[in-house]
């Protein structure tokens, strides 16, 4: 092997890579929260909805969980312009990831809805709680605690695996930045070793934060690694 590693070149690009990491975080957080809102609604429709609404929520989940996120993003980025709708690569990635996350989160949140113990709700009722107080003090905290570990894992999946898809259509998130820089300095190995390290650090920060929040808010004993 006749290759001289020059990690100094890759480290010199750290400021640019960190700009990409910030976009990665933005995409991850926005797609997750957007998906969580869709999931909350989708799960409510699948659990309590009737007729067409329930069917619609089911069809949405089946479609988005059985097709790759890349296909969905390609459809938005390359397909929609044919119909006169043009969105930036960031917007297409964000919408694609959000819709994809929404489908998975619908199923995660549905598990939360189903797990609510009717006996606790009954106890709340006999203590004189109104419907709203039952939801506020008993139902939502229970759902949140039940699904928190799954939600936290899913956030990591979107952050690491989901957002990097954006690089394919030119989003300058962490992977995209690494590709841009590597095409100029040809230091692919060094760049992607450093980028992999940054992803590990990002994931560690996210996991640690989520674990701490989980312990503090829901007494969930989550492991970071």
């Amino acid at each position, binding site marked *: 092997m006749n290759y001289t590693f020059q990690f100094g070149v890759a480290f010199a690009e750290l400021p640019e890579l960190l700009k990409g990491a910030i976009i990665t975080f933005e995409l991850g957080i926005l797609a997750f929260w957007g998906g969580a809102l869709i999931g909350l609604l989708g799960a409510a429709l699948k659990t309590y909805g009737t007729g067409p609404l329930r069917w619609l929520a089911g069809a949405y989940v089946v479609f988005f969980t059985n097709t790759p996120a890349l296909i969905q993003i390609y459809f938005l980025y390359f397909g929609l312009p044919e119909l006169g709708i043009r969105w930036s690569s960031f917007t297409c990635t964000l919408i694609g990831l959000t819709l994809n996350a929404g489908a998975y989160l619908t199923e995660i949140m549905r598990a939360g809805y189903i797990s609510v*113990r009717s*006996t*606790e709700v*009954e*106890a*709340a*009722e*006999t*203590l*004189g*709680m109104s419907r709203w*107080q039952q939801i506020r*003090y*008993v139902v939502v*905290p*229970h759902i949140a*605690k039940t699904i928190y570990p799954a939600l936290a894992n899913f956030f990591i999946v979107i952050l690491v695996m989901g957002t990097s898809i954006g690089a394919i259509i030119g989003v300058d998130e962490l992977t995209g930045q690494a590709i841009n820089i590597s095409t100029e300095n040809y230091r692919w190995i060094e760049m992607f070793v450093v980028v992999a390290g940054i992803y590990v650090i990002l994931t560690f920060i996210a996991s640690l934060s989520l674990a701490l929040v989980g312990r503090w808010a*829901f*007494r969930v004993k989550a492991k970071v690694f």
Partner: protein
Amino acid sequence: MHHLQVKDLSSAYGPLTVLKGVNFTLAKGETAALIGPSGSGKSTVLRVLMGLNKPTGGEVLIDGAALDYSRPASVRAARERMAIVFQQYNLFQNMSVLRNVTIAPVKIKGRPRKEVEAEAERLLSKVGLADKHHAYPDELSGGQQQRVAIARALALRPQILLLDEVTSALDPELVNEVLDTIRGLAADGMTMLIVSHEMAFVREVATKVVMMDEGLVVEQGPPEQIFGAPKTDRAREFVGKILRH
């Protein structure tokens, strides 16, 4: 005047009629026990009193005033006067012991938090859990959870306490700690309606025993009568069976 009067109370689960005209009364400070075979409707009586099941007929009167369970205001009034403790404790798993006890008085009745917490601490000491304020339900034994549930119900300052088979879900060695708590309440003059299968305990604590079968009251009277000289054949048969064990 009776403190609680149940007149011809009936109730149904869908097509199944569970209560077929139940009658009994409860005086202030009295401890009445509802006994009878499984499925006789004992727990349903308590559920109807708390507004969890709708009555299909009859009347419930507290201090002579009838409760109309079809009106939310009336159901609220019932829940202000009575509190229930369930067989499975039904504590809020996401809250500490102290918060389980204080949430209703603070958030629903709007009483000052400091005052309620001081009272909750007294109640928890009374049920022998002074050192468990900050524990969560899943860190407690069944007997401890049930005593928290009793403290939670008492924190509402009910006039009548309903206890629904509160020892049935407990390991035998934990039963006594809960029964001791109830003995203490009876000695303090708390008006209680107890559904129980602990016949020795009923005999000791109850001032009145109401025996039910198939949705009806078969016989009622002091424990000496029900357990010593029951007047009806059904009561005699039931008591005969349970006293053999």
